[in-house]
């Protein structure tokens, strides 16, 4: 019953994502595409943080690396798919190189090394104008042609983002359920015990971090043609912290967490725009209130609600059973 309800909810959500935009304006499509892009980055961070238990403060910088990769290469005539392959590989390698020394000492130092990388990446984007266009950034990033179809119309590009998100989701689902995914969870729950059970903890942590970073890069590759302009201020520490917030607010370590978290971080501010100057104040208050009410995030609320209902149903069943036993 419960499972059927979940599947029904999922089907409605997917139907909404596919059908609703047909009625949307340009801006609505843009925001929804942005949600899909940020969700991909948040899924990556959720793997690093939620499954492997490592705090990364550089996911925004990896999005930046991916975005600059796409912007530089596509304006030089590369296809977007080529840029995506390069960005994935580059972010994976950078993630591996960053994580290697950080995890050699004590693994919570990854947070500090990624913080440094985040600052350094921003300065490189801003200062190396021969490559990145400096403070002006790179303008006019073209949208790709796929199967002979141009994705310049917003609706088509949205479907393209949604398609990539679906691919990432399926791949992640496979990863989490594979022995690798089990190892990731084992080292989050109890690294020492995982180690004593023969899990090579350092290699798996590195792996989770590098894969998570690569997904950040992929999100960046989609971001560049979506916005059309790639400039340094978009990829500061603020974006990294924002992505971290998406994961925690959605529910870190839950598969659906990043989807909901990105919904809160991308759509909620837009809905609050009516409050004009006050919208960021209300937004911050809502986030604080939500975290005080449910520190495990939005999924935590749903979980609590379902557990309560299950417990009620179980006690009702017990009562009925008790009554039937008493009555001879």
């Amino acid at each position, binding site marked *: 019953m419960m499972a059927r309800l979940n599947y029904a909810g999922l089907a409605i959500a997917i139907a909404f994502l596919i059908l609703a935009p047909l009625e949307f304006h340009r801006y609505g499509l843009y925001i929804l595409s942005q949600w899909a892009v940020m969700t991909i980055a948040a899924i990556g961070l959720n793997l690093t*943080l939620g499954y492997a238990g490592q*705090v990364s403060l550089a996911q925004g910088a990896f999005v930046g690396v991916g975005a600059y990769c796409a912007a530089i290469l596509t304006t030089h005539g590369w296809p977007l798919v080529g840029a995506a392959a390069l960005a994935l590989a580059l972010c994976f390698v950078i993630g591996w190189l960053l994580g290697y*020394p*950080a995890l*050699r*000492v*004590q693994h919570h*130092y990854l947070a*500090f*090394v990624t*913080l*440094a990388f985040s*600052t*350094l990446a*921003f*300065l490189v984007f801003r*200062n190396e104008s021969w490559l990145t266009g400096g403070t002006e950034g790179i303008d006019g990033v073209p949208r790709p042609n796929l199967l002979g179809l141009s994705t310049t119309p917003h609706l088509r590009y949205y479907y393209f983002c949604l398609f990539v998100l679906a691919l990432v989701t399926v791949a992640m689902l496979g990863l989490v359920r594979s022995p690798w995914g089990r190892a990731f969870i084992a080292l989050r729950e*109890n690294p*020492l*015990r995982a180690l004593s059970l023969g899990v090579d903890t350092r290699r798996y942590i590195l792996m989770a971090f590098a894969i998570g970073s690569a997904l950040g890069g992929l999100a960046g590759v989609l971001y560049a043609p979506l916005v059309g302009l790639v400039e340094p201020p978009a990829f500061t*520490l603020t974006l990294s*912290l924002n992505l*971290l*917030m998406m994961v*925690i*607010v959605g529910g*870190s370590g839950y598969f659906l967490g990043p989807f909901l978290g990105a919904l809160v971080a991308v759509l909620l501010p837009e809905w609050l725009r009516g409050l004009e*100057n*006050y919208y*960021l*104040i209300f*937004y*911050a*208050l809502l*986030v*604080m209130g939500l*975290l*005080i009410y449910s*520190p*495990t*995030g939005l999924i935590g609320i749903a979980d609590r609600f379902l557990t309560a209902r299950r417990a009620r149903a179980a006690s009702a069943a017990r009562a009925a059973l008790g009554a039937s036993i008493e009555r001879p």
Partner: protein
Amino acid sequence: MANFVALLIAGLATGALYALAAVGFTLLWQTSQTINFAQGEFVMLPAFFMLAAMHAGLPFWAAILVGLALSMAILGFAFKRLLVDPMLQHGVLPLAIATMALSTFLKESVKTFYSAEASPFPSIAPDSDIRLLGVAVSWQSIAVLGVGIATVVALQFLLNRTRTGRQMQAAAQNPTVARILGVPVERMILYTFLINGALVALTSLLISPIYLAKFSNGDTLGLAAFIAAIVGGFNQIRGAIVGGLLLGVVDNLSAAYVSTQYRGAIPLCLLIVIILFKPNGLLGRAEERTV
């Protein structure tokens, strides 16, 4: 050479401000595992309390006292009761994210309800220079260093020489045993929040005349306090002080001698080198873990 000395003194003065913010940051972490990402905004806000009190007609010294009291009440007591207490048992990260939201809230509130412009702030030191060892040093820097050193000495005295201070240390090191020995752990945690409230008010008083009181002042300062605390070992007050001073000096010297373009990144690279060679920070001790 004179230039170098001047840069060094300016760096030490900046570093003293970082150190004060980092000490409060470290105290909160030690006693209650709170990573306060709003520490920069905590330093930004008391200046506005003081400005508001002066607008209400109070003299500067009374406004300082009002700012100090409000800061301890709101940024110390209310912060602990309303945000930290309900979330503490759920781990470090949700609370850290909530303090990030708090920092946005404080920043935007000041911007919306007070002013988006920078407001001039009266200084406790005369606005002139003095010649020391053939170098022009501003009274401003001397005041910052003096107040910073006095505060740190007073804090060390409180923590190491008084009964309350020792109880606070016990509560930080091992809350369970401290509780068994009759230390009122809850009250000790509250004290650290009040001390942090006082420290940020002092830092605000020292920094606002230099950078002017502005809603966005907390951005760089909060990050600097965070970095100084890490470099110093995260669980040592002395470490936070050394980390803060080091960060201020390296920041100033590298901007002058290495590269202004990469100014923000050099202290961080220094931090990485320190972490590689001293994984527990400059003065930090290894944290023991339980399985």
